[in-house]
Protein backbone atom coordinates (compact mmCIF):
# COMPACT_ATOMS: atom_id res chain seq x y z
CA UNK A 1 0.00 0.00 0.00
CA UNK A 2 1.37 3.42 -0.87
CA UNK A 3 1.93 5.86 1.94
CA UNK A 4 1.35 9.58 2.28
CA UNK A 5 4.45 11.67 2.96
CA UNK A 6 4.58 13.77 6.10
CA UNK A 7 7.11 16.04 7.79
CA UNK A 8 7.39 17.22 11.38
CA UNK A 9 8.08 20.89 11.98
CA UNK A 10 9.66 21.41 15.40
CA UNK A 11 12.38 19.20 16.84
CA UNK A 12 11.51 19.49 20.53
CA UNK A 13 9.78 16.95 22.77
CA UNK A 14 6.52 16.91 20.83
CA UNK A 15 8.26 16.70 17.46
CA UNK A 16 10.45 13.83 18.62
CA UNK A 17 7.53 11.90 20.09
CA UNK A 18 5.63 12.38 16.81
CA UNK A 19 8.62 11.03 14.92
CA UNK A 20 8.57 7.80 16.93
CA UNK A 21 4.81 7.35 16.53
CA UNK A 22 4.98 8.04 12.80
CA UNK A 23 7.60 5.30 12.45
CA UNK A 24 4.83 2.81 13.29
CA UNK A 25 2.19 4.15 10.92
CA UNK A 26 1.10 2.03 7.97
CA UNK A 27 -0.35 5.01 6.16
CA UNK A 28 2.21 7.73 6.75
CA UNK A 29 5.82 7.99 5.68
CA UNK A 30 7.91 10.48 7.59
CA UNK A 31 10.38 12.22 5.30
CA UNK A 32 11.88 15.00 7.39
CA UNK A 33 12.09 16.57 10.81
CA UNK A 34 12.52 20.31 10.56
CA UNK A 35 14.14 22.50 13.21
CA UNK A 36 16.14 25.67 13.48
CA UNK A 37 18.86 24.55 15.86
CA UNK A 38 21.64 22.48 14.27
CA UNK A 39 22.62 21.24 17.74
CA UNK A 40 19.14 20.00 18.60
CA UNK A 41 18.88 16.54 20.06
CA UNK A 42 15.69 15.95 18.09
CA UNK A 43 17.40 16.53 14.73
CA UNK A 44 20.33 14.33 15.67
CA UNK A 45 17.90 11.59 16.60
CA UNK A 46 15.96 12.06 13.36
CA UNK A 47 19.11 11.63 11.28
CA UNK A 48 20.11 8.57 13.30
CA UNK A 49 16.74 7.03 12.48
CA UNK A 50 17.24 7.69 8.79
CA UNK A 51 15.06 10.75 8.28
CA UNK A 52 16.21 14.04 6.82
CA UNK A 53 17.06 16.49 9.61
CA UNK A 54 16.56 20.01 8.27
CA UNK A 55 18.06 22.74 10.47
CA UNK A 56 17.11 25.72 8.32
CA UNK A 57 13.45 25.89 9.30
CA UNK A 58 10.36 25.67 7.13
CA UNK A 59 11.93 27.85 4.41
CA UNK A 60 14.91 25.50 4.13
CA UNK A 61 12.57 22.53 3.83
CA UNK A 62 10.42 24.11 1.14
CA UNK A 63 13.48 25.25 -0.83
CA UNK A 64 14.98 21.75 -0.97
CA UNK A 65 13.74 19.97 -4.12
CA UNK A 66 14.79 16.61 -2.67
CA UNK A 67 12.26 16.90 0.16
CA UNK A 68 8.52 16.93 0.07
CA UNK A 69 5.43 16.19 2.13
CA UNK A 70 1.67 16.20 1.69
CA UNK A 71 1.06 16.89 5.37
CA UNK A 72 3.14 18.82 7.91
CA UNK A 73 2.73 18.67 11.68
CA UNK A 74 3.48 22.05 13.22
CA UNK A 75 4.87 21.52 16.71
CA UNK A 76 6.53 24.93 17.06
CA UNK A 77 4.71 27.84 18.74
CA UNK A 78 1.56 29.84 18.17
CA UNK A 79 3.62 32.78 16.97
CA UNK A 80 5.73 30.74 14.56
CA UNK A 81 2.63 28.99 13.28
CA UNK A 82 1.19 32.17 11.83
CA UNK A 83 4.10 32.32 9.38
CA UNK A 84 4.30 28.55 8.84
CA UNK A 85 0.59 28.37 8.06
CA UNK A 86 0.98 31.01 5.36
CA UNK A 87 3.92 29.46 3.52
CA UNK A 88 2.57 25.92 3.80
CA UNK A 89 -0.77 26.97 2.40
CA UNK A 90 1.03 28.56 -0.53
CA UNK A 91 2.96 25.34 -1.06
CA UNK A 92 -0.30 23.37 -1.05
CA UNK A 93 0.66 21.29 1.99
CA UNK A 94 -1.92 20.35 4.61
CA UNK A 95 -1.08 21.39 8.16
CA UNK A 96 -1.91 19.81 11.50
CA UNK A 97 -1.45 22.65 13.96
CA UNK A 98 -0.40 21.42 17.40
CA UNK A 99 0.11 24.98 18.70
CA UNK A 100 -2.56 27.16 20.31
CA UNK A 101 -2.62 29.46 17.24
CA UNK A 102 -5.87 27.97 15.90
CA UNK A 103 -5.69 29.39 12.39
CA UNK A 104 -7.90 26.52 11.22
CA UNK A 105 -10.92 24.84 12.83
CA UNK A 106 -10.68 22.92 16.12
CA UNK A 107 -10.53 19.19 15.55
CA UNK A 108 -10.91 16.47 18.12
CA UNK A 109 -9.66 13.22 16.66
CA UNK A 110 -12.57 11.16 18.01
CA UNK A 111 -15.33 13.62 17.22
CA UNK A 112 -15.24 15.81 14.14
CA UNK A 113 -12.39 14.86 11.81
CA UNK A 114 -14.81 13.75 9.08
CA UNK A 115 -16.13 17.29 8.72
CA UNK A 116 -12.67 18.69 8.11
CA UNK A 117 -10.95 16.22 5.76
CA UNK A 118 -10.74 18.80 3.01
CA UNK A 119 -9.38 21.67 5.14
CA UNK A 120 -5.79 22.76 4.55
CA UNK A 121 -5.17 23.65 8.20
CA UNK A 122 -6.72 22.19 11.34
CA UNK A 123 -6.00 22.85 15.01
CA UNK A 124 -5.69 20.28 17.78
CA UNK A 125 -7.27 22.43 20.54
CA UNK A 126 -5.47 21.50 23.80
CA UNK A 127 -4.50 18.32 25.62
CA UNK A 128 -7.45 18.75 27.96
CA UNK A 129 -9.68 19.25 24.95
CA UNK A 130 -8.50 16.07 23.23
CA UNK A 131 -9.08 14.11 26.43
CA UNK A 132 -12.46 15.47 27.49
CA UNK A 133 -14.37 16.65 24.41
CA UNK A 134 -14.99 13.07 23.25
CA UNK A 135 -16.91 12.54 26.50
CA UNK A 136 -18.86 15.79 26.23
CA UNK A 137 -19.82 14.69 22.73
CA UNK A 138 -20.65 11.17 23.96
CA UNK A 139 -23.17 12.59 26.42
CA UNK A 140 -24.47 15.25 24.05
CA UNK A 141 -25.26 12.80 21.24
CA UNK A 142 -27.67 11.07 23.63
CA UNK A 143 -28.98 13.89 25.85
CA UNK A 144 -28.42 17.54 24.89
CA UNK A 145 -25.75 19.11 27.14
CA UNK A 146 -26.63 22.49 28.62
CA UNK A 147 -23.33 22.94 30.41
CA UNK A 148 -20.05 21.04 30.40
CA UNK A 149 -17.12 21.68 32.69
CA UNK A 150 -13.79 19.90 32.57
CA UNK A 151 -10.97 19.80 35.10
CA UNK A 152 -7.60 18.67 33.75
CA UNK A 153 -4.96 17.83 36.35
CA UNK A 154 -1.48 17.26 35.01
CA UNK A 155 1.87 16.65 36.61
CA UNK A 156 3.99 19.78 36.98
CA UNK A 157 6.81 18.08 35.12
CA UNK A 158 4.76 17.68 31.98
CA UNK A 159 3.67 21.33 31.78
CA UNK A 160 6.26 23.13 29.70
CA UNK A 161 7.21 26.81 29.88
CA UNK A 162 4.85 27.65 27.00
CA UNK A 163 1.82 26.25 28.80
CA UNK A 164 2.79 27.95 32.03
CA UNK A 165 3.45 31.37 30.56
CA UNK A 166 0.06 31.37 28.91
CA UNK A 167 -2.23 29.23 31.02
CA UNK A 168 -5.25 31.40 30.12
CA UNK A 169 -4.93 30.11 26.57
CA UNK A 170 -5.67 26.63 27.87
CA UNK A 171 -8.79 27.60 29.80
CA UNK A 172 -10.16 29.84 27.06
CA UNK A 173 -9.44 27.58 24.07
CA UNK A 174 -10.70 24.47 25.83
CA UNK A 175 -13.89 26.21 26.99
CA UNK A 176 -14.68 27.33 23.47
CA UNK A 177 -13.98 23.93 21.94
CA UNK A 178 -16.23 22.22 24.51
CA UNK A 179 -19.00 24.27 22.93
CA UNK A 180 -17.97 24.25 19.28
CA UNK A 181 -16.80 20.63 19.03
CA UNK A 182 -18.34 18.97 22.08
CA UNK A 183 -21.74 20.49 21.47
CA UNK A 184 -22.37 21.87 24.96
CA UNK A 185 -24.35 25.11 25.08
CA UNK A 186 -21.86 26.50 27.59
CA UNK A 187 -18.35 25.24 28.36
CA UNK A 188 -15.84 25.82 31.14
CA UNK A 189 -12.32 24.49 31.65
CA UNK A 190 -10.02 24.40 34.65
CA UNK A 191 -6.37 23.34 34.76
CA UNK A 192 -4.48 22.21 37.83
CA UNK A 193 -0.78 21.42 38.13
CA UNK A 194 0.27 18.84 40.69
CA UNK A 195 3.98 18.59 41.57
CA UNK A 196 3.80 15.23 43.39
CA UNK A 197 6.71 12.80 42.92
CA UNK A 198 6.59 10.35 41.28
CA UNK A 199 4.63 12.45 38.75
CA UNK A 200 0.92 11.73 38.52
CA UNK A 201 -0.81 10.53 35.37
CA UNK A 202 -3.00 13.06 33.55
CA UNK A 203 -6.49 13.01 35.11
CA UNK A 204 -9.55 14.66 33.67
CA UNK A 205 -12.97 15.05 35.18
CA UNK A 206 -15.88 15.92 32.94
CA UNK A 207 -19.08 17.30 34.45
CA UNK A 208 -22.09 17.65 32.19
CA UNK A 209 -25.57 18.96 32.90
CA UNK A 210 -28.12 17.69 30.41
CA UNK A 211 -31.40 19.35 29.54
CA UNK A 212 -34.13 18.85 32.14
CA UNK A 213 -36.18 15.78 31.39
CA UNK A 214 -33.76 14.51 28.74
CA UNK A 215 -31.59 12.25 30.92
CA UNK A 216 -31.13 8.81 29.35
CA UNK A 217 -28.81 7.03 31.75
CA UNK A 218 -28.71 3.77 29.84
CA UNK A 219 -28.02 5.50 26.53
CA UNK A 220 -25.33 7.72 27.99
CA UNK A 221 -23.55 4.82 29.67
CA UNK A 222 -23.44 2.97 26.38
CA UNK A 223 -22.32 6.04 24.46
CA UNK A 224 -19.49 6.70 26.96
CA UNK A 225 -18.31 3.09 26.71
CA UNK A 226 -18.27 3.26 22.91
CA UNK A 227 -16.45 6.56 22.88
CA UNK A 228 -13.85 5.23 25.33
CA UNK A 229 -13.05 2.47 22.83
CA UNK A 230 -12.78 4.94 19.96
CA UNK A 231 -10.23 7.06 21.85
CA UNK A 232 -8.40 3.94 23.03
CA UNK A 233 -7.91 2.92 19.39
CA UNK A 234 -5.32 5.69 19.05
CA UNK A 235 -4.47 6.43 22.73
CA UNK A 236 -4.16 2.98 24.34
CA UNK A 237 -3.59 4.50 27.79
CA UNK A 238 -6.97 6.30 27.82
CA UNK A 239 -9.37 4.87 30.39
CA UNK A 240 -12.21 5.64 32.77
CA UNK A 241 -10.91 5.68 36.34
CA UNK A 242 -14.24 4.72 37.78
CA UNK A 243 -17.87 4.33 36.66
CA UNK A 244 -19.59 7.56 35.58
CA UNK A 245 -21.77 9.07 38.31
CA UNK A 246 -25.36 10.06 37.56
CA UNK A 247 -27.12 12.52 39.91
CA UNK A 248 -30.29 14.20 38.71
CA UNK A 249 -29.39 15.82 35.39
CA UNK A 250 -25.66 15.69 36.09
CA UNK A 251 -23.21 13.15 34.71
CA UNK A 252 -19.64 13.06 36.03
CA UNK A 253 -16.98 11.16 34.12
CA UNK A 254 -13.48 10.40 35.44
CA UNK A 255 -10.65 9.85 32.96
CA UNK A 256 -7.00 8.92 33.20
CA UNK A 257 -4.57 9.23 30.34
CA UNK A 258 -1.36 7.25 30.53
CA UNK A 259 1.13 8.07 27.80
CA UNK A 260 2.58 5.42 25.49
CA UNK A 261 6.08 6.25 26.71
CA UNK A 262 7.46 6.66 23.18
CA UNK A 263 9.79 9.62 23.68
CA UNK A 264 7.89 11.36 26.46
CA UNK A 265 7.54 9.68 29.84
CA UNK A 266 4.32 7.75 30.56
CA UNK A 267 3.04 10.33 33.03
CA UNK A 268 2.91 12.89 30.20
CA UNK A 269 -0.45 11.60 29.02
CA UNK A 270 -1.34 15.20 28.28
CA UNK A 271 1.38 15.45 25.65
CA UNK A 272 0.90 11.90 24.40
CA UNK A 273 -2.77 12.43 23.66
CA UNK A 274 -1.81 15.42 21.50
CA UNK A 275 0.78 13.55 19.43
CA UNK A 276 -1.45 10.46 19.19
CA UNK A 277 -4.39 12.62 18.08
CA UNK A 278 -2.14 14.35 15.54
CA UNK A 279 -1.09 11.04 14.00
CA UNK A 280 -4.68 9.77 14.02
CA UNK A 281 -5.88 12.87 12.16
CA UNK A 282 -3.00 12.64 9.67
CA UNK A 283 -3.99 9.03 8.99
CA UNK A 284 -7.56 10.09 8.30
CA UNK A 285 -6.23 12.76 5.95
CA UNK A 286 -4.05 10.12 4.31
CA UNK A 287 -6.94 7.69 3.78
CA UNK A 288 -8.88 10.50 2.16
CA UNK A 289 -5.96 11.46 -0.10
CA UNK A 290 -5.24 7.86 -1.10
CA UNK A 291 -8.90 7.29 -1.88
CA UNK A 292 -8.81 10.21 -4.29
CA UNK A 293 -5.70 8.84 -6.01
CA UNK A 294 -7.36 5.52 -6.69
CA UNK A 295 -10.53 7.09 -8.07
Amino acid at each position, binding site marked *: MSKVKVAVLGSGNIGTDLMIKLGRSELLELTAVIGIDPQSDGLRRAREMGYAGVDTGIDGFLADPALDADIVFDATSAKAHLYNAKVLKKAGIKVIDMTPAAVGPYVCAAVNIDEHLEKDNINLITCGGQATIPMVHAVNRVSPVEYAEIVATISSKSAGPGTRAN*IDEFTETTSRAIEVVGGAKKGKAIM*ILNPAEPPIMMRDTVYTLVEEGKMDEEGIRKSIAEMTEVVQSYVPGYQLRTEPIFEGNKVTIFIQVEGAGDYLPKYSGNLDIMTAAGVKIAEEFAKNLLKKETV
Partner: protein
Amino acid sequence: MTNERDILITEVALRDGSHAVSHQFTVEQVLKVAKALNDANVPYIEVSHGDGLAGSSLQYGLSRTNELELIEAAVSVADKSKIAVLLLPGIGTLHELKEAANLGAKMARIATHVTEADVAPQHIAYAKELGMETVGFLMMNHMAPVDKLVEQAKLMESYGADTVYVVDSAGYLLPGQVRERISALKQSVGINIGFHGHNNLSLAMANTLVAIEEGATRIDGSVRCLGAGAGNTQTEVLIAVCERMGIKTGVDLYKMMDLAEDIIAPLLPVPQEITKDSLTLGYAGVYSSFALHSKRAAERYGVDSRDILIELGKRKVVGGQEDMIVEVAAEIAKNKNR
Protein backbone atom coordinates in the same frame (compact mmCIF):
# COMPACT_ATOMS: atom_id res chain seq x y z
CA MET B 1 -8.30 56.15 64.47
CA THR B 2 -4.75 56.71 63.53
CA ASN B 3 -3.50 56.07 60.00
CA GLU B 4 -0.31 54.68 61.35
CA ARG B 5 -0.32 50.90 61.16
CA ASP B 6 2.37 48.33 61.94
CA ILE B 7 0.53 45.64 60.04
CA LEU B 8 -2.05 45.80 57.26
CA ILE B 9 -4.96 43.42 57.64
CA THR B 10 -6.87 41.83 54.79
CA GLU B 11 -10.29 40.57 55.84
CA VAL B 12 -11.05 37.38 53.88
CA ALA B 13 -14.52 36.47 55.19
CA LEU B 14 -16.13 37.50 51.91
CA ARG B 15 -13.76 35.25 49.92
CA ASP B 16 -12.40 32.41 52.08
CA GLY B 17 -15.69 32.54 53.98
CA SER B 18 -17.48 31.81 50.73
CA HIS B 19 -16.46 28.15 51.26
CA ALA B 20 -18.11 28.04 54.68
CA VAL B 21 -21.43 29.22 53.25
CA SER B 22 -21.13 27.03 50.13
CA HIS B 23 -20.78 30.16 47.96
CA GLN B 24 -24.26 31.44 48.82
CA PHE B 25 -23.42 35.07 49.69
CA THR B 26 -26.02 37.62 48.62
CA VAL B 27 -25.61 41.25 47.65
CA GLU B 28 -27.38 42.34 50.87
CA GLN B 29 -25.01 40.32 53.04
CA VAL B 30 -21.94 41.66 51.26
CA LEU B 31 -23.21 45.25 51.53
CA LYS B 32 -23.71 44.87 55.28
CA VAL B 33 -20.41 43.13 55.98
CA ALA B 34 -18.30 45.34 53.73
CA LYS B 35 -19.83 48.51 55.16
CA ALA B 36 -19.10 47.38 58.71
CA LEU B 37 -15.51 46.47 57.79
CA ASN B 38 -15.06 49.84 56.14
CA ASP B 39 -16.45 51.58 59.23
CA ALA B 40 -14.05 49.58 61.40
CA ASN B 41 -11.19 50.87 59.24
CA VAL B 42 -10.03 47.49 57.89
CA PRO B 43 -7.52 48.32 55.12
CA TYR B 44 -8.37 45.53 52.64
CA ILE B 45 -11.50 43.45 52.07
CA GLU B 46 -11.23 40.46 49.77
CA VAL B 47 -14.32 39.55 47.76
CA SER B 48 -14.49 36.65 45.27
CA HIS B 49 -15.71 33.09 44.99
CA GLY B 50 -13.81 30.95 47.52
CA ASP B 51 -11.64 29.59 44.70
CA GLY B 52 -11.08 33.05 43.30
CA LEU B 53 -12.49 34.78 40.24
CA ALA B 54 -14.41 32.38 37.97
CA GLY B 55 -14.36 29.78 40.72
CA SER B 56 -18.12 29.27 40.39
CA SER B 57 -18.26 25.74 39.00
CA LEU B 58 -19.54 22.23 39.53
CA GLN B 59 -16.06 21.34 40.75
CA TYR B 60 -16.05 23.89 43.60
CA GLY B 61 -19.67 24.91 43.96
CA LEU B 62 -21.77 27.34 41.98
CA SER B 63 -22.10 30.88 43.31
CA ARG B 64 -25.60 31.95 44.19
CA THR B 65 -24.78 35.50 43.11
CA ASN B 66 -22.33 36.44 40.36
CA GLU B 67 -19.17 37.48 42.20
CA LEU B 68 -18.85 40.59 40.07
CA GLU B 69 -22.11 41.86 41.60
CA LEU B 70 -20.68 41.13 45.04
CA ILE B 71 -17.47 43.00 44.22
CA GLU B 72 -19.47 45.93 42.91
CA ALA B 73 -21.57 45.96 46.09
CA ALA B 74 -18.49 45.93 48.32
CA VAL B 75 -16.86 48.74 46.35
CA SER B 76 -20.02 50.84 46.67
CA VAL B 77 -19.87 50.93 50.48
CA ALA B 78 -16.09 51.06 50.95
CA ASP B 79 -14.77 54.61 50.86
CA LYS B 80 -11.76 53.82 53.04
CA SER B 81 -11.15 50.11 52.65
CA LYS B 82 -9.73 48.79 49.39
CA ILE B 83 -11.39 45.81 47.74
CA ALA B 84 -9.12 42.89 46.87
CA VAL B 85 -9.79 39.92 44.60
CA LEU B 86 -8.23 36.48 44.44
CA LEU B 87 -7.31 34.79 41.16
CA LEU B 88 -5.96 31.28 40.62
CA PRO B 89 -4.36 30.96 37.16
CA GLY B 90 -5.90 27.86 35.58
CA ILE B 91 -9.31 28.88 36.94
CA GLY B 92 -9.63 32.64 36.44
CA THR B 93 -8.19 34.57 33.52
CA LEU B 94 -7.08 38.09 32.64
CA HIS B 95 -10.59 38.66 31.39
CA GLU B 96 -12.16 38.37 34.86
CA LEU B 97 -9.30 40.33 36.40
CA LYS B 98 -10.06 43.22 34.11
CA GLU B 99 -13.77 43.09 34.92
CA ALA B 100 -12.97 43.20 38.64
CA ALA B 101 -10.59 46.13 38.17
CA ASN B 102 -13.20 47.99 36.14
CA LEU B 103 -15.62 47.59 39.05
CA GLY B 104 -13.10 49.15 41.40
CA ALA B 105 -11.04 46.30 42.87
CA LYS B 106 -7.66 47.72 43.88
CA MET B 107 -5.64 44.68 44.84
CA ALA B 108 -5.08 41.43 42.92
CA ARG B 109 -3.90 38.40 44.83
CA ILE B 110 -2.56 35.85 42.35
CA ALA B 111 -2.58 32.42 43.95
CA THR B 112 -0.57 29.39 42.87
CA HIS B 113 0.47 26.15 44.50
CA VAL B 114 3.69 26.85 46.42
CA THR B 115 5.88 25.26 43.72
CA GLU B 116 4.09 26.67 40.66
CA ALA B 117 4.69 30.44 40.81
CA ASP B 118 5.62 30.49 37.14
CA VAL B 119 1.97 30.36 36.04
CA ALA B 120 1.50 33.82 37.59
CA PRO B 121 3.69 36.35 35.70
CA GLN B 122 1.08 37.23 33.09
CA HIS B 123 -1.60 37.91 35.70
CA ILE B 124 0.68 39.92 37.98
CA ALA B 125 1.92 42.04 35.08
CA TYR B 126 -1.61 42.67 33.86
CA ALA B 127 -2.87 43.60 37.34
CA LYS B 128 -0.05 46.15 37.52
CA GLU B 129 -1.05 47.48 34.15
CA LEU B 130 -4.58 47.87 35.49
CA GLY B 131 -3.14 49.95 38.33
CA MET B 132 -3.72 47.32 41.01
CA GLU B 133 -1.55 46.44 43.95
CA THR B 134 -0.29 42.86 43.52
CA VAL B 135 0.25 39.90 45.80
CA GLY B 136 1.87 36.54 45.02
CA PHE B 137 -0.11 34.06 47.13
CA LEU B 138 1.83 30.81 47.63
CA MET B 139 -0.73 28.22 48.70
CA MET B 140 -0.32 24.88 50.44
CA ASN B 141 2.94 26.28 51.71
CA HIS B 142 3.71 23.25 53.88
CA MET B 143 4.16 21.07 50.79
CA ALA B 144 7.48 22.63 49.79
CA PRO B 145 10.75 22.80 51.71
CA VAL B 146 11.94 26.27 52.78
CA ASP B 147 14.53 26.65 50.01
CA LYS B 148 11.89 25.90 47.37
CA LEU B 149 9.58 28.48 48.97
CA VAL B 150 12.36 31.08 48.82
CA GLU B 151 12.97 30.32 45.15
CA GLN B 152 9.27 30.67 44.34
CA ALA B 153 8.91 33.88 46.38
CA LYS B 154 11.81 35.38 44.44
CA LEU B 155 9.99 34.50 41.22
CA MET B 156 6.89 36.31 42.48
CA GLU B 157 9.07 39.31 43.29
CA SER B 158 10.65 39.19 39.82
CA TYR B 159 7.17 39.24 38.21
CA GLY B 160 6.40 42.49 39.99
CA ALA B 161 4.45 41.34 43.05
CA ASP B 162 4.40 43.98 45.79
CA THR B 163 3.88 41.34 48.46
CA VAL B 164 4.45 37.62 48.79
CA TYR B 165 2.35 35.50 51.14
CA VAL B 166 3.01 32.29 53.00
CA VAL B 167 -0.42 30.66 52.71
CA ASP B 168 -1.05 27.82 55.12
CA SER B 169 -4.04 26.53 53.15
CA ALA B 170 -4.25 23.31 55.13
CA GLY B 171 -3.72 24.89 58.54
CA TYR B 172 -0.91 22.37 58.90
CA LEU B 173 2.12 24.50 59.77
CA LEU B 174 3.41 24.61 63.33
CA PRO B 175 4.67 27.88 64.82
CA GLY B 176 8.32 26.87 64.45
CA GLN B 177 7.78 26.15 60.77
CA VAL B 178 6.09 29.50 60.22
CA ARG B 179 9.02 31.21 61.92
CA GLU B 180 11.51 29.44 59.70
CA ARG B 181 9.56 30.33 56.54
CA ILE B 182 8.92 33.99 57.26
CA SER B 183 12.45 34.58 58.46
CA ALA B 184 13.91 32.91 55.34
CA LEU B 185 11.76 35.16 53.16
CA LYS B 186 12.70 38.23 55.17
CA GLN B 187 16.34 37.51 54.37
CA SER B 188 15.82 36.86 50.69
CA VAL B 189 13.15 39.13 49.22
CA GLY B 190 12.78 42.89 49.31
CA ILE B 191 8.98 43.03 49.04
CA ASN B 192 6.33 42.87 51.78
CA ILE B 193 5.74 39.50 53.38
CA GLY B 194 2.30 38.25 54.34
CA PHE B 195 0.80 35.34 56.24
CA HIS B 196 -2.55 33.61 55.74
CA GLY B 197 -3.41 31.00 58.35
CA HIS B 198 -6.14 28.42 58.90
CA ASN B 199 -7.22 27.45 62.38
CA ASN B 200 -7.57 23.70 61.85
CA LEU B 201 -5.04 22.93 64.58
CA SER B 202 -6.02 25.93 66.68
CA LEU B 203 -2.70 27.50 65.71
CA ALA B 204 -3.81 30.33 63.43
CA MET B 205 -3.30 33.01 66.10
CA ALA B 206 0.01 31.61 67.35
CA ASN B 207 1.28 31.27 63.78
CA THR B 208 0.19 34.79 62.92
CA LEU B 209 1.98 36.25 65.93
CA VAL B 210 5.15 34.37 65.04
CA ALA B 211 4.86 35.63 61.45
CA ILE B 212 4.52 39.22 62.70
CA GLU B 213 7.49 38.74 65.01
CA GLU B 214 9.60 37.60 62.04
CA GLY B 215 8.63 40.61 59.96
CA ALA B 216 5.38 39.79 58.16
CA THR B 217 3.39 43.01 57.76
CA ARG B 218 0.45 41.78 55.69
CA ILE B 219 -1.90 39.58 57.67
CA ASP B 220 -5.10 37.81 56.73
CA GLY B 221 -7.95 37.30 59.13
CA SER B 222 -11.54 36.19 58.96
CA VAL B 223 -14.07 37.72 61.30
CA ARG B 224 -15.76 35.05 63.47
CA CYS B 225 -13.45 32.59 61.67
CA LEU B 226 -15.59 32.78 58.54
CA GLY B 227 -13.24 30.85 56.27
CA ALA B 228 -12.67 27.35 54.86
CA GLY B 229 -12.10 24.50 57.33
CA ALA B 230 -12.05 25.91 60.85
CA GLY B 231 -11.64 29.37 59.35
CA ASN B 232 -8.68 31.71 59.49
CA THR B 233 -7.05 33.78 62.19
CA GLN B 234 -10.08 35.33 63.87
CA THR B 235 -9.82 38.99 62.91
CA GLU B 236 -11.51 40.64 65.90
CA VAL B 237 -9.44 38.54 68.29
CA LEU B 238 -6.27 39.42 66.42
CA ILE B 239 -7.10 43.12 66.71
CA ALA B 240 -7.45 42.75 70.49
CA VAL B 241 -4.27 40.74 70.84
CA CYS B 242 -2.29 43.18 68.70
CA GLU B 243 -3.59 46.07 70.77
CA ARG B 244 -2.38 44.35 73.96
CA MET B 245 1.01 43.75 72.33
CA GLY B 246 1.36 47.33 71.13
CA ILE B 247 1.10 46.35 67.45
CA LYS B 248 -0.90 49.00 65.61
CA THR B 249 -3.53 47.62 63.23
CA GLY B 250 -5.58 50.80 62.91
CA VAL B 251 -8.75 48.70 63.15
CA ASP B 252 -11.56 49.48 65.62
CA LEU B 253 -11.92 46.59 68.06
CA TYR B 254 -15.45 47.28 69.25
CA LYS B 255 -16.77 47.69 65.74
CA MET B 256 -15.18 44.40 64.72
CA MET B 257 -16.67 42.63 67.73
CA ASP B 258 -20.10 44.03 66.86
CA LEU B 259 -19.75 42.91 63.25
CA ALA B 260 -18.74 39.42 64.38
CA GLU B 261 -21.61 39.05 66.80
CA ASP B 262 -24.46 40.90 65.14
CA ILE B 263 -23.87 40.39 61.41
CA ILE B 264 -21.56 37.41 60.83
CA ALA B 265 -22.79 34.96 63.49
CA PRO B 266 -26.40 34.97 62.20
CA LEU B 267 -25.31 34.22 58.64
CA LEU B 268 -23.21 31.18 59.54
CA PRO B 269 -25.00 27.90 58.74
CA VAL B 270 -23.26 26.41 61.81
CA PRO B 271 -20.84 28.09 64.20
CA GLN B 272 -17.23 27.87 63.02
CA GLU B 273 -15.66 25.25 65.24
CA ILE B 274 -12.72 22.91 65.00
CA THR B 275 -14.78 19.89 63.99
CA LYS B 276 -13.28 16.46 63.50
CA ASP B 277 -13.14 17.17 59.77
CA SER B 278 -11.30 20.46 60.05
CA LEU B 279 -8.96 18.98 62.63
CA THR B 280 -8.21 16.19 60.16
CA LEU B 281 -7.40 18.78 57.46
CA GLY B 282 -4.74 20.29 59.66
CA TYR B 283 -3.49 16.92 60.81
CA ALA B 284 -3.23 15.45 57.29
CA GLY B 285 -2.21 18.60 55.41
CA VAL B 286 -5.24 18.87 53.13
CA TYR B 287 -6.63 22.00 51.44
CA SER B 288 -9.19 23.51 53.81
CA SER B 289 -12.03 23.85 51.30
CA PHE B 290 -12.10 20.04 50.97
CA ALA B 291 -13.86 19.68 54.35
CA LEU B 292 -17.45 20.27 53.28
CA HIS B 293 -17.06 18.34 50.02
CA SER B 294 -15.62 15.37 51.92
CA LYS B 295 -18.46 15.46 54.40
CA ARG B 296 -20.99 15.26 51.58
CA ALA B 297 -19.09 12.46 49.83
CA ALA B 298 -18.80 10.56 53.11
CA GLU B 299 -22.56 10.66 53.58
CA ARG B 300 -23.17 9.58 50.02
CA TYR B 301 -20.83 6.59 50.17
CA GLY B 302 -21.33 5.70 53.84
CA VAL B 303 -17.68 6.11 54.78
CA ASP B 304 -15.83 8.17 57.41
CA SER B 305 -14.92 11.60 56.05
CA ARG B 306 -11.68 11.48 58.02
CA ASP B 307 -10.58 8.44 56.04
CA ILE B 308 -11.19 10.35 52.82
CA LEU B 309 -9.13 13.34 54.01
CA ILE B 310 -6.27 11.21 55.29
CA GLU B 311 -6.12 9.35 51.98
CA LEU B 312 -6.15 12.65 50.04
CA GLY B 313 -3.24 13.83 52.19
CA LYS B 314 -1.30 10.66 51.40
CA ARG B 315 -1.86 11.17 47.70
CA LYS B 316 -0.42 14.70 47.92
CA VAL B 317 -3.50 16.25 46.41
CA VAL B 318 -3.18 20.01 45.88
CA GLY B 319 -5.66 22.87 46.12
CA GLY B 320 -8.41 22.71 43.52
CA GLN B 321 -8.46 18.94 43.12
CA GLU B 322 -11.94 18.56 44.60
CA ASP B 323 -12.76 15.95 41.94
CA MET B 324 -10.48 13.52 43.79
CA ILE B 325 -12.79 13.52 46.80
CA VAL B 326 -15.66 11.56 45.28
CA GLU B 327 -13.26 9.20 43.60
CA VAL B 328 -11.42 8.43 46.83
CA ALA B 329 -14.71 8.08 48.73
CA ALA B 330 -15.97 5.59 46.14
CA GLU B 331 -12.75 3.62 46.39
CA ILE B 332 -12.88 3.45 50.19
CA ALA B 333 -16.51 2.29 50.03
CA LYS B 334 -15.61 -0.38 47.50
CA ASN B 335 -12.72 -1.71 49.58
CA LYS B 336 -14.89 -1.71 52.70
CA ASN B 337 -17.58 -3.79 51.04
CA ARG B 338 -15.23 -6.31 49.56
